[in-house]
């Protein structure tokens, strides 16, 4: 028996090619039409640097990610911007964040909105909400360190005052009897040396606290730079809609033709 070819009556493709083509063209047209009907979405993306206090992160990145995914934070953001229910839902469904491997102090955040300005505003608001939450966590720690710095500075001033007083007293030793001068000089020298030691320790503490609170080691959570917002809509994607339309069109065309052939043969 000769094998069936595409053009013979017994071939399974006979009569399917035309419906497949027609279905494909109609599907493409439907996919293209859908592109104009479905509302466009724009994406804002950017990195947020997690804040730290004396080199220690205010909150681990995993906890920060969890915070970003929390409904409470998301609702705070949408309420603050006063956006509608539809846009709020899109924001919640598309908010995505991750801590890139090897750069755990950064969070990469992406979100979508129906226009570019809202996308940008949402990103900034998300960063602000996270920053606020982190500031609240860090406030106690920062104020404890600031208080310790104040205390150390006060103590240093007291030590300096005491030392000046001592130096004045040393100047009066000359008025004493020579037999008493030696003992007094030794005593003052010891006390002065103690004060100096105390001063050095205090200065070290102050330097350490100041260094810890310097902007390079203690800083709030903030976006690395302004978010980048896509120029063109990221959804609907023409390639996806056209591919889906073509697939559905061809599949339906073939199925209908096959069914018709089966029913009316």
């Amino acid at each position, binding site marked *: 028996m000769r*094998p*069936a070819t*595409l053009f013979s009556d*017994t*071939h*399974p*493709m006979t009569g*399917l090619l035309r419906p*497949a083509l027609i279905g494909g063209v109609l599907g493409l047209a439907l996919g293209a039409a859908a592109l104009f009907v479905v509302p466009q979405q724009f*994406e804002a993306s950017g990195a947020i640097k997690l804040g730290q206090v004396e080199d220690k992160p205010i909150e681990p990145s995993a906890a920060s990610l969890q915070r970003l995914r929390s409904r409470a934070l998301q609702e705070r953001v949408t309420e603050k911007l006063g956006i509608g229910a539809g846009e709020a839902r899109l924001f919640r*469904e*598309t908010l*995505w964040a991750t801590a890139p*491997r090897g750069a755990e102090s950064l969070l*990469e955040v*992406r979100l*979508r909105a129906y226009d570019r300005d809202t996308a940008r505003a949402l990103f900034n608001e998300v960063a602000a909400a996270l920053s606020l939450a982190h500031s609240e966590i860090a406030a106690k720690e920062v104020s404890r360190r600031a208080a310790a710095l104040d205390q150390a500075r006060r103590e240093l001033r007291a030590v300096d005052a005491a030392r000046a007083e001592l130096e004045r007293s040393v100047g009066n030793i000359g008025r004493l009897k020579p037999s008493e001068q030696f003992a007094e000089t030794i005593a003052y020298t010891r006390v002065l040396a103690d004060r100096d030691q105390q001063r050095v320790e205090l200065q070290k503490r102050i330097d350490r606290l100041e260094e810890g609170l310097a902007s390079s080691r203690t800083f709030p959570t903030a976006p690395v730079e302004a978010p980048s917002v896509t120029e063109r809509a*990221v*959804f609907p*994607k023409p*390639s*996806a809609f*056209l*591919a*889906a339309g*073509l*697939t*559905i069109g*061809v*599949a339906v065309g*073939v199925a209908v033709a096959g069914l018709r052939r089966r029913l009316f043969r």
Partner: protein
Amino acid sequence: MERALRMIVDPANGAIVFPLALALYYGVWPWFLGLSSMVETRETFALLPWIAAAWVAIGALPFPRRPTAPVDASRARSFVYVVLVAFTMFAILTLATAPSIPLIEALRGAGVEAIALSREEFLKARTGWEAALPYVNALFTSSLLPYALALALLGRQRGALWAVAAFFVYSLVFMEKAFFLRLLLPMMAVIVVAGVRWPKLSWLVAAAVALLASNVVVSGFGANGIDDFLLYRAFEVPPLTVADSIDHWQQRYAGMPLRGATSGWISTLLGLERIPFEREVFVYQFGDFETGTASSNAAYFVEAYVNFGYVGVIINSLLLGAVVGYVGRSEDAALRCMLPLILYTVFLGGMFALLLSNGLVLLLLVARWIAAGHAAPTPGRAASLADVRGS
């Protein structure tokens, strides 16, 4: 159960079973997994399996079902001998030059990391002239050897079962958990195509699960429970790898089509710098591995998509559908037996490698040559498959 298994394994049903499996496993099942992927990934993942499944089914349409016809027994026998001798030499060379044998390492009680390292070094991490060994291994074990064994079994050649047993032992040496499926799947198809009642497919499936479980235990991966590990590997890892591959592509390449750079063959042909995409995905998922050769393979439509977008998915799926139709409904019963293995490969891995590195194109050419011999018979040639009327 047995009937359902036979229906699934029957190569003639590949054009229905495979698209259905794609749609259910990658199209529906991930909804229940709660994957935390990027929005673009979720959108793409929601669409890709359905497009792929539809075009595979469409691609298989032009190939009518054909009855089994005899092949040139003389050419088939020559092919079987050549492949078996060449493979034996290759296996001896590989085992002799390997820094360590994974199975022996495992039996000595080495840890998970040590076994994994040994497995990588057994083939993948070879350097110099030995770097060719993994490719030769893939060529033999993915197409030529299973086809030769199917030919030998269906042609009732002497020593066929011994050759099957030898390949089975070789497949265990790797400690690659599912490597033995390269033997088991074609053999299951042989049972269906030959229409024999014994052994039952359900027994083979049960034995395969037991073997997988024992592989897991010996490899040391079953610390949290073997069943958990097997279920995780079977039902979560493949969809997860699809999602992670698309995620990685969106993040690292900003969704830019890679134009074939992920394939060694295509990148060489087009003069593109090769992108080790599967290795990058592994690093994205789990971090660096000591040998730098570990990779995460995703279903074929991912490779098609990251390289050529939706057009690539449609064309690759059409091509795959054509392969499914041609192989699954071929007159060559042994070639039909290769379909489950082909479909298993693309269900969990790329298609470019299947066509070239894994030798599918070569296999089709060889099968054509063997079939052509029968079309122009010469004295002395005997039809060996006259008694095989599987479908």
